[in-house]
């Protein structure tokens, strides 16, 4: 599977002893970019859908005569004019300009997530649902294709499956990441395995499951789903929370790529070819940073 090409001319010119290896299969690369594209549209249409009811609740139903709201984004009139606020677990923050009350100067409107963060930019729940469900099918299909391909070509077993050695390497790995010291190898490091495995085997499946749990029709097929999740409104809250985690993953993912060498990292996810560090020499035990 591993194709190794010595790329001496470039590396010798740079005075380095590096090797280009074929690291990412076409399945990994294709599904990666379809996810990136789909998640972008799912996020922006999802924020629009959230704007229709900018509250999150815990339980089977929404509390109108009782309080089970854990998050609320809204606008209120104050002595200083309208302000946007975000309230989490009873703690209220002024988020004017971004959450609750936003828009061009003089044309602000009450809306939970701002215009620039939603599809469509104006309030349109129906259209957001069309976009959201279209990409939900794309995302889910892609995840299944990736799972089958990854099981067949060994990507999951070889690159993502956790090993005992991963646990042993974890402390060192955390320290290296904190120091922005990266090793370019064929294998993912422990934190990478946790991040990618967490997104692909936990976060995305959880998004699909909580999404289905919100569908009244699916509830007639899988009535136990909401019972496990704690009720439809809890499912909706989990859906939102995992969205926040996926956005955090995206931010860290981009930062790590920039820190580890964006050209090499991007080349590997576009062409599959990745430049690895030279093998460590026994007389030079110190590891080289990126």
């Amino acid at each position, binding site marked *: 599977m591993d194709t190794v090409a010595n790329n001496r001319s470039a590396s010798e010119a740079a005075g380095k002893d590096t090797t280009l290896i074929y690291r990412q299969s076409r399945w990994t690369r294709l599904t990666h970019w379809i996810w990136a594209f789909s998640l972008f549209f799912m996020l922006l249409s999802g924020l629009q859908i959230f704007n229709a009811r900018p509250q999150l609740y815990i339980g089977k139903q929404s*509390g109108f005569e009782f309080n089970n709201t854990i998050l609320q984004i809204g606008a209120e009139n104050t002595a200083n004019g309208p302000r946007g606020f975000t309230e989490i677990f009873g703690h209220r923050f002024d988020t004017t300009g971004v959450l609750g009350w936003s828009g061009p100067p003089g044309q602000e409107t009450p809306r939970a997530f701002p215009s620039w963060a939603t599809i469509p930019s104006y309030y349109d729940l129906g259209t957001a649902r069309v976009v959201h469900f*279209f990409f939900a*099918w794309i995302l889910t299909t892609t995840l299944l294709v990736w799972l089958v391909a990854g099981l067949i070509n060994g990507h999951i077993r070889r690159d993502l499956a956790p090993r005992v050695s991963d646990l042993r390497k974890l402390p060192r790995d955390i320290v290296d990441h904190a120091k922005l010291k990266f090793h370019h190898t064929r294998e993912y490091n422990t934190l990478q395995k946790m991040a990618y495995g967490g997104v692909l085997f936990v976060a995305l499946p959880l998004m699909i499951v909580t999404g289905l749990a919100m*569908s009244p029709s699916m509830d007639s097929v899988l009535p136990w789903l909401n019972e496990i999740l704690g009720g439809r409104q809890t499912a909706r809250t989990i859906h939102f929370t995992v969205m926040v985690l996926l956005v955090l993953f995206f931010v860290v993912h981009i930062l790590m790529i920039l820190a580890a060498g964006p050209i090499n990292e991007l080349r590997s996810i576009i062409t599959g070819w990745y430049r690895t560090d030279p093998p460590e020499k026994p007389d030079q035990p110190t590891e080289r940073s990126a």
Partner: protein
Amino acid sequence: MAKFQISPKLQMSRRKFLTASSLGLSGIALSGCDAFDSGLGIGGGLRSFLENANGLTWRAQRLLAGRDALAPEFTEADIRQPQRPNGVTAPDDDTYKGLLANNFADWRLEVSGLVEKPLSLTREQLQNMPSRTQITRHDCVEGWSCIAKWTGTPLSLVLDQAVVKPQARYVMFHCLDTIEQSLSGDIKYYGTIDLIDARHPQTILAYGLNGKPLPVENGAPLRVRVERQLGYKMPKYLSKIELVDGFANVGGGRGGYWEDNGYDWYGGI
């Protein structure tokens, strides 16, 4: 869009431009911008393409749920608040107000269209038919949910009494409340469901809520419960049920008031 100056030679149809630009990676650059928004309007090429997924969702859920899979039912302990009223909660229509003043004694439910025996039922006649009571969760398209106990006549019994003609495919609900005042006159709420949902055991014409007569804000004297779909598929203030074979004569042709304004006809998700 207006900001872009495209020379006539390079000009392509807006539909092609929007499809290409939004399906290409440049879609990211267009997020939230006017060009992308306009391609998503009802009838737009891009939107029509994306709406294919709704048809897929409908077929997939129908395949999985079949005809009779029941929506979850809850217990009395889950009724923790009055049913939240939504949409029109106090119809301002003279006809409705006249009927309400007389406690709906003059109200009738007409059953017409593609039926062998058109009906005109009083509230008493409906209430004398076998009833079903169910504690179910109302899910609004906006995202909220509310659990309540509904009592009503199974729609299938009414359909059996009227004898549905074989060519009928949908049940259309005509309502008494004006949902929108347009230049061409008042638009009263309307909607459709197919005969599978119409004959679903939990699909009832509800006249009771939480053990009491259905209040005005929740749709008195009669509203539909379609428990495997979202709230906008359950019209309130019913006056007529019409069996139809398509959406051609249903409002703007998409099968309902909210559907004509961009919601999916299938509200199961």
